[in-house]
């Protein structure tokens, strides 16, 4: 057996697995999105061209959900990264000595987003929820957190509270990895406090900045669990993210072709975003 053959054999199981679980579905995606198909005619789709894509692109709800996802992704990513960076740097003297505190701060990341959503249904409930209870007790009123006027803000804040720890952790690890000599040298040159951070430390955190922003943006755009359990698609579709749109067209609307066309468009948009993100971060990894 030549080394070349051997190498191929080593990689074969993974390649086959991916072909079966992602390659085949991708082909199904493409075929069905171009077909007229329903749950009854699943095995005999009739190719009919780009009608499904026209349906999706003509659907106001699709554009609404795209706008929601982009806005949600951008807002949460920026807030999480800003807050995470602040906490990592501001708390670094404490965290350096008591690193177990990081386990407490990053605990929310271990909670399933769907369970986090259910917890907030309890926390925000107008009769049994602690938050409205305390707001009533202290201020005499409490907003309808999940009402149409506030629901967007509410889900953004919830997402930020759950995932800021992720940015915090990345920045903490990157900040601690800055070599001591660099800080020492800068101190010799008279840099300290804010100047030290801005001129010396922040530039060294920039790669982490890009990575954290990109990861959180992508995760924000594809948000599903937390919104599904909290609001469904929300009052009048006010919290319909792209994945929620795809899910509801498939399972509630029963419009398979349209749902698949939407997911093909989503896939294309994701690849585009990904390419842009890597260009923005400015390096093509991996390994």
């Amino acid at each position, binding site marked *: 057996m030549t*080394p070349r053959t051997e*190498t*191929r*054999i080593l*990689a074969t*199981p*993974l390649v086959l697995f*991916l072909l079966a*679980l*992602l390659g*085949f579905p991708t082909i*199904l*995606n493409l075929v*069905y999105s171009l077909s007229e198909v329903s749950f009854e005619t699943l*095995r005999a789709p009739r190719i009919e061209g780009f009608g499904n894509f026209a349906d999706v692109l003509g659907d106001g709800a699709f554009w609404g959900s795209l706008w929601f996802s982009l806005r949600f992704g951008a807002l949460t990513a920026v807030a999480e990264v800003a807050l995470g960076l602040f906490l990592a740097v501001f708390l670094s003297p404490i965290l350096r000595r008591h690193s177990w505190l*990081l386990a*407490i701060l*990053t*605990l*929310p*990341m*271990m*909670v*399933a987003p*769907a*369970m986090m959503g*259910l*917890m907030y*249904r*309890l926390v925000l409930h107008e*009769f*049994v929820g*602690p*938050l409205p*209870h305390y707001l009533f007790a202290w201020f005499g009123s409490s907003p309808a957190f999940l009402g149409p006027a506030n629901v967007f803000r509410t889900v953004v804040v919830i997402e930020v509270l*759950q995932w*800021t720890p992720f940015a915090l952790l990345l920045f903490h*690890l990157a900040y601690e990895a800055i070599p001591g000599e660099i800080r020492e040298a800068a101190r010799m040159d008279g840099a300290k406090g804010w100047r030290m951070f801005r001129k010396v430390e922040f530039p060294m955190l920039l790669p*982490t900045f890009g*990575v*954290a922003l*990109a*990861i959180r943006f*992508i995760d924000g755009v*594809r948000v599903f*669990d937390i919104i599904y*359990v909290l609001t469904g698609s929300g009052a009048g579709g006010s919290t319909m993210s792209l994945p929620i749109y*795809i*899910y509801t067209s*498939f399972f509630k609307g029963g419009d*398979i072709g349209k749902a698949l066309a939407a*997911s093909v468009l*989503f*896939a294309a948009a*994701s690849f585009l975003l*990904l390419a842009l993100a890597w260009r923005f971060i400015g390096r*093509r*990894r*991996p*390994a």
Partner: protein
Amino acid sequence: MTALRWAVLVLFALLFNAPLIATLSTSFKPPGEIMGNPGLWVNSPTLANYAAVLTVSDRLNVYAHLWNSLAAATIGAVLPLLLCLPAAYAVARRGWGQRVFLPLVVNLRAIPLIIFALPLYLMYQVLHLLDTRLGLGLILAVVNLPLTMAILVNAVADIPLEIDEAAAMDGARAGRVLRRIVLPLCRPALVTAFIFGFITAWNEFLFGLMLTTSKAVPMTVGASFFFASGGAGVQWGVAAAVIVVAALPPVVLGLLMYRQIARAMMAGAVKG
């Protein structure tokens, strides 16, 4: 300044974990207290809610959900290790697939998996994998592939070249080198990938929701059904206990294995 730092730390630790604290508190309240006392303090703590959760009823069989989650998450965490270790060796030592295959797998993390969920549903229907633990486990394995691959490629690349070269000189085949040398040396990385994969798989919701209906429903989805079926008459104490039970395993694992988790996150961020 130090006092201010501590104050900020305590404030955010409480803020981030507030929903957990509130849910824990509610789960210990008797039914009579929940309406009258929505605050965080429990006046007359009880374990009745947990007793109700652990009793099988027609609304909730918690053992079935836990078993489904355990089985599917185990498949979802172990299978990527088996698939990725040989492939990682091919990538790191033989230079295979570095230009196209590896970036493709690692960047899967950034692709919204719902785009595969619908065709998988149709495919599973034909293959009779809908509503099975195996079917759910297989797709959870896909979810975990990118990070497992990143972690294992790094781990294999970190093994000193001389060690496996010496073995190769002695005429050992790749399979043998892999079993005798790479596998033991990669054990810490395998543990890290397993723990992170298990937590991710346990916490997954979308595929559980779409690909299971009754027999293989995982704990996260079961908990949300419990909420939904309650309608106006949600028993909040029992519901809170259900959430705690569903959220607890990954949280405990996360607290115990905090260092491994941080390492896994880092691998994903640097290589992702």
